[in-house]
């Protein structure tokens, strides 16, 4: 989709005066059947996931895998050298099952370490970050999204998207400054 001047269209955006009006608008856009759209706010709005029809984030599954990896790493790291390859008696502590509890603190620490790193990299990867730019930044008003602005953007690639319908929906939901956002 292109504008008459030849710019590629990313989508249609609207600004909302408050978190509550954005929340109500999101429910209407969800119910109108749009799929490729997003809201932007300076802070996470409680209940917005449900208002947008999004489920629970599955990031926790990634972290679980990371945690298990960390635990196994510690098990191999500790049992390998200390119990199997280079068994060495220090402080008279025998190399058998009786000293296994002494391995637990490091197993715990590495579980936490790997989980935390997987949480961090998962949140970036799942959000498609880091990225240099994004079409929404072409909209001049959008810089308020990290200050006190509340925005809703419907993407042009949504199968239901037509300029008329999107504009009407956004205006009816209380959106202001409804604007076409260019791709670049």
């Amino acid at each position, binding site marked *: 989709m292109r504008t008459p001047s030849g710019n590629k269209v990313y989508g249609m955006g609207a*600004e909302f*005066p*408050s*978190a*509550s*009006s*954005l*929340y*109500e608008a*999101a429910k209407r856009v969800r119910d109108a059947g749009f799929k490729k759209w*997003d*809201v*932007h*706010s*300076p*802070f*996470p*709005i*409680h209940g917005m996931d449900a*208002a*947008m029809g*999004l489920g629970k*984030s599955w*990031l926790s599954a990634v*972290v679980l895998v990371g945690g298990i990896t960390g635990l196994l790493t510690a098990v191999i*790291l*500790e049992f390998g050298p*200390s119990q199997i390859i*280079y068994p*060495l008696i*220090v402080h008279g502590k025998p190399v058998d099952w009786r000293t296994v509890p*002494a*391995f637990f*603190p*490091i197993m*715990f*620490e590495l579980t*936490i*370490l790997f*989980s*935390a790193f997987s*949480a*961090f990299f*998962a*949140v970036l990867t799942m*959000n498609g*970050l880091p*990225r*240099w730019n*994004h079409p929404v*930044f072409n909209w001049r*008003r959008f*810089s*308020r*999204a*990290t*200050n*006190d602005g509340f925005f809703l953007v419907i993407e042009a690639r949504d199968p239901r998207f037509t300029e008329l319908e999107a504009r009407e929906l956004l205006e009816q939901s209380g959106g*202001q*400054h409804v604007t076409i956002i260019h791709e670049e």
Partner: protein
Amino acid sequence: MDGAITAPDVIAGEASASVTKPLQRVPLVLNKRNFSWITERIAGAVEGSAPRWWWVTFAITSMVAMFGLFCLGYQISTGVGTWGLNHPVGWAWDITNFVFWIGIGHAGTLISAILFLLRQKWRTSINRSAEAMTLFAVICAAIFPGVHVGRVWMAWYLAPLPNNYGIWPNFRSPLLWDVFAVSTYFSVSVLFWYTGLIPDLATLRDRATTKIKKLLYGIFAVGWRGSNRNWRHYEMAYLLLAGLSTPLVLSVHSVVSFDFATSIIPTWHSTIFPPYFVAGAIFGGFAMVLTLLVPARAIYKLQDIITPQHIDKMAKVILLTGSIVSYAYAMEFFVAWYSGNQYEKFAFYNRIFGPYWWYWWVGMLFCNCLSPQLFWFKRFRYNIYVVYFVCMCVNAGMWFERFIIIVGGLHRDFLPSSWGIFIPTWVDIWTFIGTFGIFLSLFLLFIRYLPMIAMSEVKIVLPEANPHHALPDEHHPVAAVGKERH
């Protein structure tokens, strides 16, 4: 909703006289400030040129830091003998400073993680700077055991790396647990802190006036655009990081206490140590948070965000943890008496009447046990000078406590023929003072270049952040782009 004036304001007209209005909580952000005021006040502190007090303070702290680094260089190039360590006191100021600094870090993680899980919304005003304090404290802490090993260039022996000597780190040693605990703690704290910073860095990026600022804040903001599809994963990641940090912070000081508790030295060989150390860490850490935030709040005029209510709550945490610590002190004496072990009994007698008697009377008894008891009284919790006095007492007291535990245990143990005394050298003293220089310099750089309060989190505690909050001026048009005037 905690701390928020919400629906009752609006539906007051509908409520019949017989219906009791729910008690209103004191708002967490005073004077009904709005979102853009918060952005302006917090981001504004970072923008613009540095004030003169900042340059003066930074010049002093960085000089102290440089001298501390010089002492470290001198110690590394000459040898551990430049410190006053000798038989029988092989651990003294170095390990005291290590435990002191690492303990201070714990308050940051407690505020950012445990209070998050407990849904304590007041944490949002203080968590960012407390977490920064954690990182800087852990950096200062890591210096001491790192240098204490003597041959710093052999420190890689601590890492489990294959080598041709066929010797691996002893995974059954509490000292190695410490290496893993502290490095994990630092890494996870950095991740947690940085994850929390991303939305605020995006705010700074969007407000940046120069190209270089836009580029740097832009890179570290990783292209954040406040999208709810991103917030969804972000909130889950934040929750999980909080959930992971909670057992981690409890484990770190427990592991630190294992360094002592798994040995056989009288006063060290004790099962009470892990909870006692963790409580002490939170106690000392909260005092340090207040030590830094009370001046910062006055200088940057943040009284509406860090309100007397916040200081009151932190004072209560100090009272609670201080009382736990006092109980642990009392229990140590009781167990020493009840155990019937003559070495244990002597060690505790020596703690009160031995050569380091005044460390106990002033540091442990007055500073740690008695001074926080002032916080039973509301008027003292709301008096900034009393709060600051108690925090200073606790800062000093917790250092004395670690010194008494470490040197008090070592200097007179089993054989009177091998008793000794510890005398610090100038290198000992200046290395410690130098870490304060490092700590304060890093903190000053932090408040200069990064938002010291989590803007995106403080905004959530405003009543209008609630999607069910009806604004009285709902139908007013959106204000024009540009800075709000207040």
